[in-house]
Structures are given as C-alpha cells and as structure tokens.
C-alpha cells in the first residue's frame, strides 16, 4: 500500500529534507554570527549592554500621556506611555477607517453617477500619495489654519479650536459612575438569562443606573477648559499632532479598505442580488441582509492586512511630533545609547501587536466563515 501511495504536494522527498535542513542551519549560523559579532564589537568599544536602563529615571517630559507620567518616572514607564499612545491611535484608527472605508466601498458601486465617481476619485488620490506626505500636510493645515490660543474659535460652549488643538470639557470622576456601570451590567446579564422578561430587563437596565445616579445627588461636575496664560488648562486636549495622525491614517487606510469592501461585494455572485430582488427586497434591504453578510467572509482576510498596516504606519507619528512608541524608543535610545536593546524591544512590541491583531481577526474570521454541513 505504501508503494502505491501518491505523494501529496506537502510531502517531501528525503533529499529535499536534507536541503531544507542545510538552509536552516546556514540561516541559524549566520544569525548567530551576527549576534555574536555585534556583542563582541560592542564590548570592545565599551558600549553598555543589557536592559537595566529600563529601570533608570527617564528625565524627559512627554507631551501627551494616557497614564500619569513625570520625568521622575523610569524609561520603562515612558515606553508604556508610548505603547498606550500607539494603541490609542491603532484602535481609534481601525474602527473609524473601517466605517469610513465600508461607506466609500459601497459608494463605489452606487447607482448614482456622481457618488460613484467621487468615491473613485477619493480612492485613487488618497492611496497613491505617500502617507508621510499626507501626514505632514494635515499637520501643517491644522497648525496654520487654526488661530493662536488667545484668539481661539469657540465652536460650542466650552469647546475651543486653536493651533494647540481641540480642547473640550471632561467629566470629573465620581465613584457613583462605577456602581452605575455595575448596575447596567447586572441588568443586561439578567436580560440574557431571563429570556421572557426581555422588555422588563431592558427597562431595568435604564432605570437602575439612573436611580443610583439620582440617589447619589446627581454628581455631575465638569472640568471646563479655561484660557490661562498662553494655553488652555483643564479639560482634555486633542493635540494637532494626534489629530493629524488620526485623520491621515484613517483617510489613507479607508481608501484601501474601500477597495477591499468593493471587491468583496462584487465577489458575491450576481444571482444572490437577483434572488433578493425576486423575493421583493429593495436595494438597501438586499445589501444589508443578503450581500454584506456574504461579502464579509471575503473581506476579512485582506482586512487583517490593512489593520496591521495601519498599526505599523502609526510609527510615522515621529515625523509630526506625536509621542508614540517609536518616538519614545528613539529618545530613549539616544539618551541611553543602547540602540540594539531599544530597537529589539520596539520590534518585539510591534510584532506582538501585529500577532495579537491577526489572532483576534482570525478568530473572528473563523466565526463568520461559512460552515459547510
């Protein structure tokens, strides 16, 4: 029987295995040689090595942080600040560019000539201009178009636009909010368990947190931005750097996503939309109920690539002064001189981010994939 078995494409002859082993050995030896050579050379030149620097005081300030940070904190914490800034950009960027890209992708196939052509122009222009250039243009625009803080535009009460960014009030945290969240979760969980009382549970989800809020004396305090000295203090600032980075990444990535969505929709066989029409569904219903769910399966694998690209492209932030992981790594590298460690660490973090994104999206892909019975 063994003699008759046909070799599948993935099975290898012994000779091929030997060649592959030899190639692997050469690659490993080369890698080892490079690492060793680097260490020997660094030792000879008296360049410090190791990751001990992560615990030392960073001593530089960071403009935008999601967690408390001061120059007295360590390089490790500074890197964490950079990582969180990168994550913030990646997550907002992925969500918004998906929505925008889907809309434009649908518009590409619109029956309306103008809408179709506008969407086409959008895609062709934005995906063919280098992203770095786009980021710098957005940044310059935001900086030059907006007035200085003392002459800021007040677009809504307590919301200001100036060349320092968009400043808006923030809610001052009260412990009641935590309990309101808990109550909401509990009500929602109850709704899932008690299948019958769905309406009642939904009402509960609304009333319970509200009751808690009123019982606590309706603690609603806002931190309102005010012009103090040169800048606004209080509230939250969306800086021109972050805004330019987000707008640039979203607008650029959306152009690629639009093409993926368009090809996904066109990949659904024509018979499907004809069948939907025959069933009496109008165009919108057909799109929502028949075409898009099937297109989703085609769209997800290439979409993963776009999400990874967006995350990695966010490292261009360094050109426009947004303190992302790359920017903080470079500053750290330069202050400590430990280029090899800093770059290796940065590569490991980007790799981990990319792998995590792939993992989540592949899991989602497996969930929505057509299960053949």
């Amino acid at each position, binding site marked *: 029987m063994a003699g008759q078995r046909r070799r599948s494409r993935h099975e290898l002859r012994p000779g091929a295995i030997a060649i592959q082993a030899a190639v692997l050995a050469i690659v490993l030896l080369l890698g080892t040689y490079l690492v060793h050579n680097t260490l020997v050379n660094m030792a*000879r030149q008296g360049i*410090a090595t190791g990751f001990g620097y992560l615990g030392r005081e960073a001593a530089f300030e960071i*403009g935008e942080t999601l967690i408390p940070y001061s120059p007295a904190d360590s390089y490790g914490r500074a890197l964490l600040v950079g990582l969180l800034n990168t994550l913030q950009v990646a997550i907002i960027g992925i969500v918004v560019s998906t929505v925008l890209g889907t809309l434009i992708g649908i518009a590409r196939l619109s029956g309306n000539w103008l809408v179709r052509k506008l969407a086409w122009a959008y895609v062709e222009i934005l995906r063919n201009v280098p992203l770095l250039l786009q980021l710098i243009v957005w940044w310059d625009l935001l900086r*030059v178009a907006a007035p200085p803080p003392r002459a800021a535009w007040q677009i809504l009460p307590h919301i200001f636009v100036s060349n320092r960014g968009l400043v808006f009030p923030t809610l001052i945290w009260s412990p009641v909010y935590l309990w309101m969240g808990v109550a909401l979760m509990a009500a929602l969980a109850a709704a899932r368990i008690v299948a019958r009382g769905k309406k009642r549970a939904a009402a509960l989800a609304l009333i319970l947190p509200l009751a808690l809020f009123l019982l606590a004396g309706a603690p609603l305090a806002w931190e309102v931005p005010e012009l103090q000295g040169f*800048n606004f203090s209080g509230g939250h600032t969306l800086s021109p750097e972050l805004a330019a980075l987000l707008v640039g990444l979203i607008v650029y990535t959306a152009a690629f996503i639009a093409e993926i969505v368009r090809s996904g929709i066109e990949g659904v066989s024509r018979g499907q939309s004809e069948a939907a029409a025959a069933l009496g569904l109008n165009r919108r219903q057909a799109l929502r109920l028949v075409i898009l769910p099937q297109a989703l399966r085609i769209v997800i694998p290439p979409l993963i690539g776009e999400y990874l690209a967006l995350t990695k492209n966010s490292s261009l932030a360094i050109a426009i002064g947004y303190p992302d992981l790359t920017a903080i790594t470079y500053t750290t590298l330069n202050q400590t001189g430990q280029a090899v460690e800093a770059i290796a660490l940065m590569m490991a973090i980007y790799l981990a981010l990319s792998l995590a994104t792939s993992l989540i999206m592949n899991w989602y892909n497996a969930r929505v994939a057509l299960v053949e019975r």
Partner: protein
Amino acid sequence: MGERVTFSKAFAAALALAAAAQLAAPAAAGTLAAVKGRGYLICGVSTGLAGFSIADQQGRYTGLDVDTCRAVAAAVLGDAGKAKFIPSTAEQRFTLLQSGEIDVLTRNTTWTLARDTGLGLTFAPVTYYDGQGFMVAKKLGVKSAKELNGASICVQPGTTTELNLADYFRTNHLSFKPVVIAQLEEAENAFFSGRCDSYTTDRSGLAGTRAGKAANPDDYLILPEVISKEPLAPAVRHGDDEWFAIVKWTVFALIAAEEKGITSKNVEDMRKSDDPEVKRMLGTTPGLGQQLHLDEAWAYNIVKQVGNYGEIFDRNVGKDSPLKLERGLNALWSQGGLMYAMPFR
C-alpha cells in the same frame, strides 16, 4: 558590564561557531590609516544649523563645526578640501560614529558623562562653550523663562536640551507641554507657525535659527536665562588613541594659533618667528608632527587653510556673521574666556 559577559558566554557556549565569528570582527583602531588610505575624511554634521554646519546653495558646507572638520583634514591629509560631510539628526549621530560611517563627529554635541562612558565615545577639547536658552515671539510679552508656566515648548528629541528642559521646569515647579520633533526644520517651522510658545535649544542655535529662518528676526526674543552648561565638542570612537590625539591637538592648534597671533594671512611669515613654541608648532623645528604620526607641516596647514580659532569664530558665528554672537566664554583664557590650549612641546 556583568550582563554583557553573561550574554557573550551564553552565546559562545550555545554555539560552536563562536571562535570563527571572532576572527571576522573588523580590526580595531586604525582610523588614521583608514583616512589616509581613503584619501578623504568623513565628518558627521547637523542637518543645517546656521553658524555651525549648514550647506549653501552650491552644497558647500560652512560653519564652526565644519571648519573644525576641515582643520582635521588639513592636519591629516594636508588639504582642508578633502573632507566629506554626512548630515545626521540628533538621534542618528552617535550610531553613525559607533558604526564607523564617520571618522569624527563635529555636530554641536554636548559633552556629558553618560555620553563619555556609555556610548563608546571620547570627546576632544570643547570648540564652543554654549548654554541652553529659550526663544519666544516678542508679541507674547514674556520677559523671563520663569513666566513660561503652562507653555507649549518645541524641542528636538535625543538631545541634552530635552533633559535640561524637563529638569529646569521640575526645579522651578512649573509645568509645560513638550512638542518633540525630530527634524530641525520641522521643529523650527512648528515654532514660527505658532504651534509652540517657545523654542528651546543652545543659545547659539537659537541665534542661528533666528538669523537664518525667521521671517523677521526682530520679532523674536532670546530670554536671558541660561539653564545649562553645553560644552560642544568633537567626538571620536573610544579606544583609538592615535586618532583621538590628532583630533585633540588639532583643536589645541587652532586655539594656540590665536594665542600666538598666527593667522591664515601671516602664517608664512610666522614660520620665521623667533618664538621657539611657534617654531615647534609650525614645524620649523621638527618633531611634534612625527609624534602625532603626521606631517611636520600639520599645524601650518591648519592655520594656512582654515585659520585660527578666532578667525573661525568671527566668520561663522561672531562679528562677521549674521549671528553676531559675542566671544563671551569662548574668548581666550588670557582675555577672560575658557579657550586654553595645552603647551606645544
């Protein structure tokens, strides 16, 4: 240091090829031989800082740092023109030197302990004693750095400037928002377009930026506070003592020439001077050049082709330049400054 040994040992133990790898490591030292063999010197300079290193319309570099580099070329190769310049950002500069892509770093670089020890560099004597300051638009109405509480401040990453800035505001219990931009031009644009209230760097750099990039230099004010010591010095790779001595004594030759009154104009006559130190310096009495492994005319070539320190200062950053900086700390020691050359004997 301990970690390094463990690293190497682990790799050596794990892999049988360690010995072979060591053989292939590039030969240490020998920068002098490398430069002579190549026929030209390679220096790391800034991406364009008026007065220190900036390329003109013809692509010719000028500046105090550039002249330091040209002086080294004159000493080593007998021709100040045989110098090539590689522009680098503040962040790239040390890696360029460590990796051997440049022979000398002459790029307004502050001499600090951490850089002297951890980076595998050695600093030659200081060519410009500077200090960090702040520049603001006059219409802001600020007269002192202490009034900058809450300000947005443009700064370049990977600099001592970035650290001094944080230290200064910490010491004075003030807050600020740094806007950190790697490219010098972008940082300057951000400041002039009003993105930042203030721009901070070495005061000479502020003067250079104001003179070279501001639409109207009179609209900008350099605040009186000097918040740090910034001794700017050329750097070479650690461990090549022969090359270090050459760069070190090139700088001393520039200073000593000014001290002795030797200029690019009178250097020919000074060769006939009766002063024994001048005779030793200019090679009329041979010996010093040989000890540096250079031609006996090394210092003569420097002064003849590049000038003495005072000439270099005046033409690039001093009274004959748009920057119009005072000599201040950079005057000779005999005139109340810090410029002091070791004896030529």
